[in-house]
């Protein structure tokens, strides 16, 4: 009677220890994945706000456009609430600590990009200023990455800016995304012995994008790059996020 009880207790202990260690290692992974997802949404929201204000930004008749960093931030916060039900100014307590750390940083970086661009945005007599979702996104991602161990980058299979050229992982993931039907789901993988999260959130061409990226293919667009000949819904690129687990 004594031995079966001892055996049961020992087995329970072993099982408990094994389960808890899995749970411990699983928690930071889930946190990283959730954080990557929110970061991608936030960068996309910033791009969306720039896109929504594009006509105003490109208005040559107006000097001060009123598209200040404060106005931009206000619109981003509201849109983020609409998409995620989360207030960036009062992040919910259940959010992973990493997300609580990096989401305000990305918001701040995005705001700084709009602040830096004020001289360009507020030029009167100049229409197209190249302050578009893509250039905004590149700079916001770079500013953010300079201040965080989490790295964000915009990438595409044939990027106009060579600094956005995909690495080997990104290229494989982009090719995979290009063959799949349109979806908001990210491609996520753990690489380097499960120590680094790589997440790619696809960006698709909308109607507005086609003025520069659509047809006729090869003809230069307003910024001097050859049009890609893309169709609405084609894969434009992705937001690539890299979170190393050890550094957290």
């Amino acid at each position, binding site marked *: 009677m004594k031995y079966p009880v001892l055996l049961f207790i020992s087995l329970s202990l072993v099982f408990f220890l094994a389960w808890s260690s899995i749970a411990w290692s699983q928690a930071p992974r889930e946190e990283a994945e959730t954080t990557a997802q929110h970061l991608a949404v936030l960068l996309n929201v910033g791009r969306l706000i720039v896109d929504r204000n594009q006509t105003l930004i490109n208005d040559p008749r107006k000097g001060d456009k009123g598209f200040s960093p404060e106005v931009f931030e206000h619109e981003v916060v509201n849109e983020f609430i609409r998409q995620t039900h989360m207030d960036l100014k009062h992040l919910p307590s259940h959010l992973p600590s990493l997300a609580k750390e990096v989401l305000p940083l990305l918001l701040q970086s995005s705001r700084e990009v709009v602040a*830096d661009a004020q001289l360009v945005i*507020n030029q009167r*007599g100049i229409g197209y*200023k190249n302050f578009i979702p893509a250039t905004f996104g590149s700079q916001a991602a770079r500013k953010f990455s300079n201040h965080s161990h989490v790295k964000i980058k915009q990438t595409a299979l044939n990027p106009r800016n060579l600094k956005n050229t995909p690495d080997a992982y990104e290229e494989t993931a982009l090719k995979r995304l290009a063959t799949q039907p349109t979806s908001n789901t990210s491609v996520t993988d753990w690489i380097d012995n499960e120590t680094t999260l790589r997440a790619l959130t696809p960006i698709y061409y909308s109607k507005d994008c086609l003025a520069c990226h659509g047809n006729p293919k090869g003809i230069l667009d307003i*910024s001097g790059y050859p049009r890609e000949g893309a169709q609405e819904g084609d894969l434009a690129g992705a937001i690539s996020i890299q979170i190393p687990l050890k550094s957290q």
Partner: protein
Amino acid sequence: MSVQSITRKLRHRLKESGPHGIVPLLIAFGLFLPGCGLIFDAVELVQPLTRDEMSAICSRGQLRVGISVEPFRPFVFPAVYTDEGVRVTGLDVELIREVADALTTYCGGEKPIVPTLHLTRFRDLFIEMNEGHLDLFVSSVGGNIPGARPVGLWFSIPYFHNGGIGAMIQRPEVAEKVRAQFEKQAGSPDTLAAIQSGLSGLIVAAQRGRTSHLYAEADLKNIRLLLCDSLPAAIEMRAPPIDVVVSTHAILDYVTKHVWPDWRLLTRNDGTPLVLTQESFSIVTVEEHRRLQWFLNNLLYRLEESGRLEHMRRRWLEEDYAPTRRAAMEGLPFEVSKVPEHYDQGQCRFATGR
């Protein structure tokens, strides 16, 4: 209070503050020494404290360059946003790169000399230069037009010649009026006389402070001169309607082709461009910077000799290109100084006292 009591108090304070208290006291005392400038002068003779402008640029690692915020396409394009941030580009910007590269070599090549562009209003460039905030400025500035060289500033040998002041119009009647004057001169052309008669009574706009303004003031007596803060301000002017805009011919040639298609260049009767007077552009620095002046002249001579300047001129004036893409590929970042937060191209006002 007697001198004795002051000395006593001072001794007491020194005792309290210890040996460290003496230093600030001596400095404070030294400041009131009459004739202390003589001591500095004597020290300078033994050990020069100031360096020449070239050594200063080398040790700073930066070349402080002024550039006009008013766009003078294709010399300076309006600032655009790129993946790398805000950038400015144009022929003048490419020339600044050349100067900075040559300075890097001059300074030993260990660390690159970074051009720091100070974007400011055209009229402020001269002030900034005189106040010592800039090493030089490059903003399609003509040095051979009478009145264009402010005292204390030095102009390099030209990096852009065969330019000159041109004119653009909207209404064909204006061109016909000028051409009629040329027709009267069959056999002995006199551009100035034809222009003076042809533009008589018309509203002519020029940018305030630029060489076209000086030309119009001096040579076009019978016009109604409208002075504008920038070229775009002149284009936007609706009341009164502008008959003619005078400015650098190369700039007008570019903007009539690429920016303001409603405007056209004023030409001679045979269709060749009408240049009102010749003008060449120079790099500007202060009169005292003799070493920098020789450096710039020698560099410009070498760039001309090697065909590099010609290549740059053709690249910006003749090739078909998108300035935004060039800004993204090769543009330079800049610091905004003395430019209002919301840059405005300004207004136009009739010249007074004519």
